[in-house]
C-alpha cells in the first residue's frame, strides 16, 4: 500500500479533565476528499487543530506523508472560515505571501519575481479572481475572499489541504456555487482535502469519503466511566456524483443523510463501539480490551 497522506492512530485530547477526542484512528490516502461532520461538541474542530499543529495531542500519533506533525508549517495548507487573508495586502500580494516567506531573503520584505507573479496570476485565474488581483480583501465579497484564501493556500502545493467550515459564513447561493467550484478544483488538481463542517448535506455532497465524529455511543467501559469523547462512529465511501446541485434532492442522497443523522447526531441512539459502520476500505479501529470485551 502506498504511504497514506494523513495517518492518525490512538489520538486522545482532553481539556480540564473533559475528554474531547477519544481514541481516534484514521488514515487518508492521496486524492481523497475527506469530509468530517458531527454534532456540536464532538471535537471535529479540535481534531483539525491537532492535525494543523495549533495544539498538541495528549497521546497518539499524527503523521503527514509519514512524518510526525509539529508546529504549523508547509506540510499542510489551511483555509479558515474567516481571517485567512492578510487585510493589509492586495489579493495578488496575499497569494504571493508563501513565495515571499519561502523564497525571499529574510531582510527583504519586498521580494518579488516575475515567475512568481505569473504563477500567482495563474492560480487567481483558476479561482476566477484574475480581475480582482489588485483589490484589498475588504473590497471583496465573502465568496471571493474564500476563493482568494484557497488560491493562497494552493500555491504552496500542500500535501493536505485542511478546511475548517470554509463556507460557513457565506449565504446559501454563494455556498452552493463554491461547493461546485471546490469539487471541480479537487478533481482537476488531484488534491487531498480534509474538510470539517457541521452541515451534513454539505459533507455528503462534497466528500469522496465521509467521517462522522460523535460522542453519542456506548462501550463496555461501564456507565460510570468518565465522559466519553468524540470518536469516529461512521466512515463511508461516498459515490462520485456529478457536480450538480440536483443530487441534493435525490431520494437516495436524502436517505443517506437521515441515516447518518440518526446514528451520529441523535443522543438517544447510541451504537456500540463494535458495531460502528466503518465501511471505507482504509478504515481501521484500535479498540482497547475494556471497550469491547
Amino acid at each position, binding site marked *: 500500500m502506498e504511504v497514506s497522506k494523513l495517518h492518525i492512530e490512538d489520538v486522545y485530547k482532553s481539556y480540564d479533565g473533559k475528554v474531547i477526542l477519544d481514541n481516534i484512528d484514521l488514515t487518508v490516502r492521496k486524492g481523497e476528499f475527506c469530509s468530517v461532520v458531527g454534532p456540536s461538541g464532538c471535537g471535529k474542530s479540535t481534531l483539525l487543530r491537532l492535525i*494543523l499543529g*495549533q495544539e498538541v495531542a495528549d497521546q497518539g500519533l499524527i503523521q503527514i506523508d509519514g512524518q510526525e506533525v509539529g*508546529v*504549523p*508549517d*508547509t506540510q*499542510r*495548507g*489551511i483555509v*479558515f472560515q*474567516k*481571517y*485567512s487573508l*492578510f*487585510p*493589509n*495586502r492586495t489579493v495578488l500580494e496575499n497569494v504571493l*505571501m*508563501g513565495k*515571499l*516567506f*519561502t523564497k525571499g531573503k*529574510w531582510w527583504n*520584505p519586498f521580494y518579488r519575481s516575475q515567475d512568481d507573479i505569473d504563477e500567482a496570476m495563474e492560480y487567481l485565474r483558476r479561482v476566477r479572481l484574475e480581475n480582482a488581483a489588485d483589490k*484589498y*480583501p*475588504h473590497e471583496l465579497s465573502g465568496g471571493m475572499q474564500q476563493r482568494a484564501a484557497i488560491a*493562497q*493556500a494552493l500555491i*504552496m502545493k*500542500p500535501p493536505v489541504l485542511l478546511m475548517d467550515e470554509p463556507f460557513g459564513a457565506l449565504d446559501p447561493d454563494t455556498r452552493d456555487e463554491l461547493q461546485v467550484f471546490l469539487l471541480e478544483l479537487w478533481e482537476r488538481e488531484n488534491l487531498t482535502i480534509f474538510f470539517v463542517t457541521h452541515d451534513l448535506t454539505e459533507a455528503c455532497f462534497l466528500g469522496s469519503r465521509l467521517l462522522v465524529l460523535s460522542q453519542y455511543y456506548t462501550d463496555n467501559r461501564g456507565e460510570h466511566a468518565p465522559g466519553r469523547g468524540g470518536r469516529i462512529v461512521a466512515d463511508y465511501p461516498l459515490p462520485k456524483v456529478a457536480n450538480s446541485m440536483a443530487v441534493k434532492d435525490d431520494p437516495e442522497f436524502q436517505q443517506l443523510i437521515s441515516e447518518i443523522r440518526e446514528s451520529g447526531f441523535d443522543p438517544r441512539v447510541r451504537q456500540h463501539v463494535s458495531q460502528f459502520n466503518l465501511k471505507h476500505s482504509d478504515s481501521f479501529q484500535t479498540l482497547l480490551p475494556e471497550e469491547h470485551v
Partner: protein
Amino acid sequence: MKRSKLLGIYAQPQGWLKITLALLPFILVILAYLVASDIRLTENPSDKLLPSFHSMLDAFERVAFTPDRRTGDYLLWQDTLSSLTRLGLGLALATLCALFLGLNMGVFPGLASSTVPFMTMLAMIPPLAVLPILFISFGVGESGKVALIFLGTFPLMARDVYMAVRRIPAEQITKALTLGASELAVTYKVVLPQIMPRLLSSLRLSLGAAWLFLIAAEAVAATDGLGYRIFLVRRYLSMDLIIPYVIWITLLGFLLDYCIRAIIKYRYSWYKSE
C-alpha cells in the same frame, strides 16, 4: 412626516447648516472676548488682563518678524524650532521603542509575561512627579526634557501596540506559518505592517500628553522654547503675548494631528475598513 434638520436624534445637519453650527462656538467665544475686553479697556486703557486684538497683533509682529534686540533672533521661530525639536525627539524615541517592544511582547508570550506587569506599573507613574529625578539625572539641558516626553508617552504607546498585536486573529499567524513563514517573518512581515496604522493613531493620541510634558519641562528649566516664553512673560502679565502663543501652540498641535490623520488615511487605505 418631515424630520427636523437640527433637533432630535434623527437630525442630519447638512451643507451650510452644518458649517454654521461648527463655526458658531468659535464666533461666540471671540465675540464674548471682544465685548469683555472692550468694557475693561474703556474703564482702564492700561488694563493687561484682556488685551485688544490690536495689541496682540503688535506683540505677535514683534516676536515673529522683528529680530530680538539682545540676541538678533526671531523669538517665535527660535522658540518653535527648539520646542518642536524636543517634542520630535521625545516622540520619535517613544514611538520606535513602543513599536519594537509592543510588537515583540504581543507575538512572544514569554516576553509578555516578563514585561506586561512592569509596563503597567511604569504607566502608573505620574511623569511630572519624576521630573525632578530626570532633571537631576539627565541635567537641565535637552536630554532631561526629551526624557520626560519619552517617559510620559512610551508606556501607553507600548501597551497600545501590544493590544493591537493581540487583536490580530490567531488564524492569521497560523496561516502565515503554513505558508512557510518563520517566527521572525511572522513578527516583521505579517504583524508589523498590520499594526503600523494603529501605531500612528496611538502617536496621534499621545501628542496631547507630549505637549503637556514639553511645556511643563520648559516652564521649569529652559532658555528658550514656547513654554519657556509663556512662563517668562507671565511675570510682566503680558497677556498680549501669551494669548497669541497659546493660539500658535494650538495651531501647531492641530497641524501635527491633521498630518498624521492624513498619512493614515492615504497610506493605509485598508485600515478600519474591516
